[in-house]
């Protein structure tokens, strides 16, 4: 599995964990929008963090579930995965 999470993977996780359908290109356009405005609530983000931890077999920092935007989230998660690689 790739060590880096892409926008495509985040979009897929949003659908799987919270039933939110967003096309990857729309996610890219709303890279700095709040997850709230994309329809993702805090439980949904928590579910995505849990799924990533299971997939990659590594814990995510506590701040991951507090990220407000896709950019913040992917930056934090990917730097965590890179550090662990």
């Amino acid at each position, binding site marked *: 599995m790739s060590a880096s999470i892409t926008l495509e993977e985040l979009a897929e996780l949003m659908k799987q964990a*919270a*039933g939110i359908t967003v096309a990857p290109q729309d996610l890219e356009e709303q890279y700095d929008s709040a997850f709230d405005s994309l329809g993702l609530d805090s439980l949904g983000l928590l579910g995505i963090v849990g799924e990533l931890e299971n997939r990659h077999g590594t814990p995510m920092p506590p701040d991951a579930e507090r990220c407000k935007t896709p950019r913040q989230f992917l930056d934090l998660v990917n730097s965590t995965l890179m550090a662990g690689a």
Partner: protein
Amino acid sequence: MNAPHVRRAAVTGIGVVAPNGTSTDAFWKATQEGVSILDRVTREGCEHLPLRVAGEVRSFDASAAVEERYLVQTDRFTHFAMAAADLALTDARLGQADVDGAPFSLGVVTAAGSGGGEFGQRELQRLWGKGSRFVGPYQSIAWFYAASTGQISIRRGFKGPCSVVAADEAGGLDALAHAARAVQRGTDAIMAGSTEAPLAPYSMVCQLGYEELSTAEDPARAYLPFTEGARGFVPAEGGAMLVVEEETRARERGVPVRAVIAGHAATFTGASRWELSRDGLAQAIRGALREARCAPEEVDVVFADALGVPEADRAEALAITDALGPHGRQVPVTAPKTGTGRGYCAAPVLDTAAAVLAMEHGLIPPTPNVFDICHDLDLVTGRARAAEPRTALVLSRGLMGSNSALVLRLAS
């Protein structure tokens, strides 16, 4: 000085998702025709259980009724509630613009007996099958009895008084009464009712311990209250949501005032102590009539609890005559739920919907599958009876000992 305006709570919208119909029209057609849809349980994972007959909602397409996020985040009982709430809003001609224009004047009240058992089972299977890291966060809210109130409030933007009644099956009536009181205190309208989804494996196993449950094999003979063949009740899923609205406001909006919630009372007499429910139910009826300022003779139809357990049926028949006097032996009594099963808290809400529709249509629906009554009651059997009911009494009892009565009146 003018007399202060008395705020009355009216029913202005009815939304039904029931085993015998997933729209109010389909429900009423099947109800007044006395159709029984009781059938063998077909839900996956339930085939081997000793509960053979139930009232399943087979024609409900959740993905057509609610958004994908709610399919993932909530249980079937909440899908039913959202769908029924939407139908009730449409029926009451309340659009999203009306809600958004005055969000604090609209609230939600639901009752639930079973909660989100199917969702909970799936997550618990992940817990024991794969480990705690595989349990999704939505488990924390989806199984909960309060989920439907919260999710309807969030989905439609109702920010007025919201609550959940946990009061056993009779809580379905208590939720409607709670809504009526909120309207009397000043809220414009409340979305009120109950839906249940207790026909998944985990939820069914929970019910197997009820000695009142019918484990009969033959759908036509599984649920026969008030007869020598009474052998318990058949469970069901689905339910109804009603718009309970301040009467004057409804008239100002130009929508029909379908009925007025005129009186309610509730008592408690202990779990499975059916003999004692005679006094408890009679007291609830008296209290509801008192609040409605209704004489016993004015009651035109009774929607019975009809548990289908001999002691409980006897207690209910006696309670009706205890509270209504000689009129109790003459008033038409019906129990349409023998054709759909008994959906816990949702059952008396469906009865309330049927009572409003019966008054509107001048037709008392029959009690499907039931003949040869062995109690001193005028139970409507076979086919619907033409009548002009203007006052309806709805009764409900819970397996844990709650008894409630609700009086509905046609608006004059």
